[in-house]
């Protein structure tokens, strides 16, 4: 993803997790904002371009997938914002003309893409830009560096290259790059700023609905995960309880004989099931009931031994 000129920063590094897409869009639209809001996630980037409070471009791209625009971009951005645990938002104010140029970079018509510079007559191309009064951006780049020249009606507005924060008025880096034999170029054209302002995506995209749907999906997913987690915990607890019950059962039967099987079943039912084993008070009542029954069957000494073993198991399980 190429860098965009930063212009005048309004907000930088705002945590996306604390933001609502609807609030961001509403605030920028109501403030007659011109410029763009850039959302940076670990694996994706989203950009909303505004011109005098009108949403003119939406752009979304993941590191792997294709770039999306308009409704799809807005939906993907909302999903990403709702689901992401990390991400930042930067908002930069730009002039009307630069906003148009940024729009051309994101969604303009591509006249040239990855064209090797040595194979092009650059003078002719620049003349064509001038003669056809093009609006847009000429991007010159190598594998290591890139530079952009923004045009309005065929005249250069300014120069921007990687590493710089703002638009330069002198060509500098772009001239040096143009002389590199490995350099390539892209040429993007855009409609004029006035034409750009003729439509507002907010008229056709219901951001609130998209956001609510994304949040609802996120909530549903969270609920599903919570349910799965609860189920998993329940199964784990059930397994733990089953094992514990089995161990207690075998100790009791070892001491009192097979009649102990029925006693355990009855006392567990009375105590409200094996869940009582993890509750201090209820497990003590359960143990007391086992002891009471055992008094009819075995010696006091053996009862003490048995109780000690069962109590140790219960304590271990409760830890």
């Amino acid at each position, binding site marked *: 993803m190429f860098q965009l000129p930063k212009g005048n920063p309004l907000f930088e590094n705002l945590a996306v997790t604390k933001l609502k897409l609807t609030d961001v869009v509403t605030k920028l639209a109501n403030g007659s904002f011109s410029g763009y809001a850039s959302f940076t996630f670990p694996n994706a980037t989203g950009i909303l371009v505004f011109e005098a409070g009108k949403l003119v471009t939406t752009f979304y791209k993941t590191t792997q997938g294709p770039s999306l625009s308009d409704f799809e971009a807005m939906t993907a951005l909302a999903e990403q914002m709702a689901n992401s645990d990390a991400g930042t938002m930067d908002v930069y104010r730009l002039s009307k003309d630069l906003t148009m140029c940024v729009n051309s970079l994101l969604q303009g018509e591509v006249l040239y893409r990855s064209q090797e510079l040595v194979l092009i007559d650059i003078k002719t191309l620049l003349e064509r830009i001038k003669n056809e009064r093009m609006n847009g951006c000429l991007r010159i780049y190598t594998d290591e560096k890139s530079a952009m020249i923004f045009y309005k009606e065929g005249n250069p507005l300014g120069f921007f290259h990687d590493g710089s924060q703002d638009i330069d008025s002198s060509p500098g880096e772009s001239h040096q790059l143009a002389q590199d034999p490995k350099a390539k170029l892209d040429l993007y054209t855009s409609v004029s700023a006035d034409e750009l302002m003729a439509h507002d995506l907010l008229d056709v995209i219901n951001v609130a609905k998209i956001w609510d749907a994304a949040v609802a999906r996120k909530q549903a997913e969270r609920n599903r995960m919570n349910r799965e987690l609860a189920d998993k915990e329940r199964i784990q607890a059930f397994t733990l309880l089953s094992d514990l019950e089995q161990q207690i059962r075998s100790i009791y039967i070892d001491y009192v004989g097979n*009649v102990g099987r*029925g006693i355990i079943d*009855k*006392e567990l039912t009375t105590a409200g099931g094996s869940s009582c084993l993890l509750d201090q008070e209820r497990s003590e009542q359960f143990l007391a009931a086992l002891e009471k029954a055992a*008094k*009819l069957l*075995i*010696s006091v*000494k053996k009862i003490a031994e048995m109780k000690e073993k069962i109590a140790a198991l219960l304590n271990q399980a409760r830890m």
Partner: protein
Amino acid sequence: MELLLEQLQGIPTIYLIQLAFWLLAGVISFMFSLGNARIWTSISMGFFLILISQFYLLNKLFYTPSMAAFTYVTGTVAIMLITHGFLEYYVFCRTFEITGRKQSVYLSTMLLLLLSWIFLSINPEPSMFTVRNVKMVENAIWVFLTLMNLEIIRKIYFSIRDSTIARAFICFGAVFVLIFLWKGSELYLQVFQWDRLWGNIAFQLDLDEIAFDRDIILDDSENYHGRINLARQVYDYAGMLAAMAVSGTFAFLYRLLK
């Protein structure tokens, strides 16, 4: 004092030995009832009451018809308590339920004995016949409930045969076999009027002479001398052995549950 000693000497030695063993059995069973689970209280209190019921053996010392009848009623209460205890134990083996309190057992027993005493007090003083009838009723109940207890004990044993205490129930089985012989032999003698109480009645009322005058056979004991003698021997020795077995069983039970 001399008279007391003289009368004491008049009591057959076998009865004195039997009484001594019942005294031992009574003390052990009562002590056992104090320190163990509630269900054992009914059983051990029942065996303790046998001691009281055996005081009739000392009739020569302080005989009154009411006292004699009371000792027999106590004997009836004893087997009822024992049966109740074994029934509760059997119910425990099947349902694993233990209910009630020790105090309730002691209080109920005392109440039953008190009511029996009141019953005897508010009615005419028992005649010799009445006393003998009460004794017969006691023996009949003992014989019937002893057989029932043997069946209950068999079932209990099979429910808990791999438990420590199971062997004690074999001992109880032996105790009830001896008690059946003891009480059964006396009932046998009573049914055919070969018992000592009937002998006393016949002697005091001169029934032999009346029978002779009216040509009725009231005493045929001479014709069945052998079986009467055997029944009396069984009564004497089974009673003594039963007392010994009860003492031994409770001592064994105490050791198992210690």
